[in-house]
């Protein structure tokens, strides 16, 4: 069994190392200097292996650290009572969720598929050795942090020591039960597709974890200790069952069946399917236009759900919020004062909000998946005049769609400003209105330009451009950073409007210059 663990571990490691090298090769500029033979280069292999080891340690420890810190330790501050039992109580309840949602054994991962189905390793030996390793990793990963955070919260040492083993025990019981269910009823569980029961259980346990402590009901330490000992004993018993279970291969062949059509397609397939489902099947949809306008109108009408409906929804929600705030400033003079201040200092925050409500990414994705993906294989569609003609039409549409919710916000902000006490400088009203609209146009242009200039997809609708990913990520980061910026509305509004106008002009010039060359399927 040790041997099969060694083989499977090195298999997993090789595959991880190769993925790391592959990602390195995707970095722009750098990739030009890296040959295909990189995969056999020993130096880079060792480097990737080190990253892989760091990754293994991170999954073992960092995850547990974040889990206990965020889900339990920081949550303690929500409760008035300074009771260490709350820590154990939440921990115990969340452990039950983890045991069904995060089993390791019933997660259809690629490395299981490679080992069991492709390499035909002994399924039982493979599973058991890796499962034991996973369980040990859980115990080792939890121990430092149950000790650290537990002791900090005043939990007795013995309880802190038992906690990781309690987790292992609950996981073993749950795994044994799922195996038993397979043996008895041939039901296979896939932990990534939890059944309704499991969702309900998760909901109940979440509520049980956080609500009762609020009212002073918690699991006493002694009860937890007893429970933990029982669970650990039962876990040992279940481990015996897990070792005796004989049908690992049959079970995994069912669980991993979807992997046969390629191992990385699932997410991609699901996205493709979902985008396709966005096409509305309604015979009454027609168009009286001609040529590109005809083509575009049908695209927009058949993607109503994705385009206008979503924009209308955001507009309605925005209108609702605006109305709420208007009412609030009328009845609460104190709130009015605060909100008035916000209107005059917090405009940068709206960069992030406008970024979030912009539908650009979803729209360009649908454009690709449902339209350009196929159309780009026709030569007439790749003629510069076609590309630019459609670019202009699409720019108009995408701007129009996003302007609807933007208009509600743009009109709402000056109103809120006025009714919350107004401002001495009348220009502020105009600046609020115009800057929100220009931000909306900016994001629309930005998304479409990135799509046209970096067209990131290949024939198989995989994103192949790391530049595109870096730009997307960078956009997010920049917008997010604006959350913390406080600037005078007048100054910021005027600058952001000027920037947007300038950006749009430059972007369109670039698009007319380069899109005919860049807008094609990636090889």
């Amino acid at each position, binding site marked *: 069994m040790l041997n099969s663990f060694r083989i499977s571990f090195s298999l997993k490691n090789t595959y991880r190392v190769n993925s790391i090298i592959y990602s390195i090769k995707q970095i722009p500029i750098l990739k030009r200097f890296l*040959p*295909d033979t990189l995969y056999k280069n020993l130096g880079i292999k060792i480097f990737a292996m080190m990253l892989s080891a760091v990754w293994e340690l991170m999954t073992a420890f960092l995850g547990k650290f974040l889990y206990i810190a965020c889900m339990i330790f920081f949550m303690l501050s929500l409760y008035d009572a300074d009771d260490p039992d709350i820590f154990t109580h939440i921990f115990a309840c969340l452990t039950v969720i983890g045991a069904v949602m995060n089993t390791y054994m019933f997660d259809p991962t690629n490395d299981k598929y490679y080992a069991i189905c492709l390499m035909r390793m002994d399924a039982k030996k493979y599973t058991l050795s890796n499962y034991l390793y996973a369980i040990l990793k859980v115990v080792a990963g939890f121990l430092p942090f149950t000790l650290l955070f537990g002791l900090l919260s005043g939990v007795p040492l013995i309880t802190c020591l038992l906690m990781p083993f309690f987790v292992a025990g609950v996981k073993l019981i749950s795994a044994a039960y799922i195996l038993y269910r397979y043996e008895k009823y041939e039901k296979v569980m896939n932990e990534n597709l939890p059944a309704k029961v499991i969702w309900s259980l998760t909901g109940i346990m979440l509520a049980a974890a956080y609500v009762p402590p609020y009212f002073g009901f918690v699991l006493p330490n002694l009860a937890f200790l007893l429970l933990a000992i029982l669970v650990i004993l039962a876990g040992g018993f279940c481990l015996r069952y897990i070792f005796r279970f004989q049908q690992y291969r049959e079970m995994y062949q069912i669980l991993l069946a979807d992997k046969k059509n390629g191992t990385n397609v699932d997410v991609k397939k699901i996205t493709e399917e979902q985008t*396709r489902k966005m*096409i509305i*099947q309604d*015979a009454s949809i027609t168009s009286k236009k*001609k*040529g*590109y306008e*005809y*083509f575009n109108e*049908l*695209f927009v009408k*058949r*993607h109503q759900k994705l385009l206008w409906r979503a924009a209308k929804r955001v507009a309605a929600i925005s209108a609702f919020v605006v109305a709420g705030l208007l009412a609030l400033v009328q009845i609460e003079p104190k709130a009015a004062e605060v909100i008035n201040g916000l209107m005059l200092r917090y405009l940068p925050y709206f960069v992030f909000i406008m970024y979030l409500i912009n539908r650009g990414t979803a729209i360009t994705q649908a454009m690709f998946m*449902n*339209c350009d*993906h*196929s*159309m780009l*294989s*026709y*030569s*007439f569609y*790749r*003629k510069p005049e*076609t590309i630019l003609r459609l670019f202009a039409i699409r720019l108009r549409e995408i701007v129009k769609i996003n302007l609807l919710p933007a208009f509600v916000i743009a009109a709402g902000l000056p109103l809120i400003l006025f009714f919350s006490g107004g401002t001495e400088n009348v220009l502020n009203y105009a600046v609020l209105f115009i800057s929100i609209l220009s931000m909306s146009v900016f994001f629309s242009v930005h998304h479409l330009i990135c799509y046209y200039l970096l067209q990131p997809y290949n*024939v198989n609708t995989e994103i192949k451009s790391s530049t595109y990913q870096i730009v997307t990520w960078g956009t997010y980061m920049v917008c997010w950073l604006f959350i913390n910026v406080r600037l005078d509305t007048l100054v910021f509004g005027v600058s952001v409007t000027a920037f947007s106008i300038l950006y749009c002009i430059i972007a369109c010039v670039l698009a007319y210059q380069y899109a005919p060359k860049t807008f*094609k*399927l990636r*090889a």
Partner: protein
Amino acid sequence: MELVIEGLSKYFEKKEVLRDITFRFQKGKIYGLLGRNGAGKTTLFNCLNRDIKTDGGDFYIDEAGQRRETTADDIGYVLSTPTVPEFLTGREFLKFFIDINQKNIQDLKSIDEYFEIINLAEEDRDKLLKDYSHGMKNKMQMLVNIIAKPHILLLDEPLTSLDVVVAEEMKQLLKTLKEDQIIIFSTHIMELALDLCDEIVILNHGKLELVDQENLNNEEFKNKIIDTLREESHA
């Protein structure tokens, strides 16, 4: 009219996929492009369709001694997996295509007449393309190329996954098309190549080579082709 390729080369990193290819394809013929897996057939098509840049050499159209660059209108490319805009119905797709290409289409017919050519049932014409079967999508893609009549038609493994009836229909269709066009047809299926094509061209080790049937019968010719493929892979 001839499609002339002169010294065409293409590298992927250090691997030379197309090696200094020189060849003349003539109008009125269907060329069967044979090659082993990974020989570079699709790369050659992608180069001719200008989907990827070449690393050397040139290709152009020679019309009665007059040389000119190929344009997007000259080339039709049918991929092995048919791609059609899923959000349109068959009829809408054709209408759009005709709208855009009107000035290049000779003797324009009605949309239904076009559907007749590829034998597409009346009830399917107003369905969304996303609900078309593989074969129907393939027919649509072919039809667009029949309407546009590009001078050069590149077909990448087009009949491989069609049922026998559709495949036969498509074969007949191609035979009627070839008069005014250069059709280059890549396939793995030897019988199909022998049955449909006027010339057999082999792509192996980055080189294009015409295999002459001389006066061999089909069986002998087949063996000759296999031998050529085999020998060259050891070269």
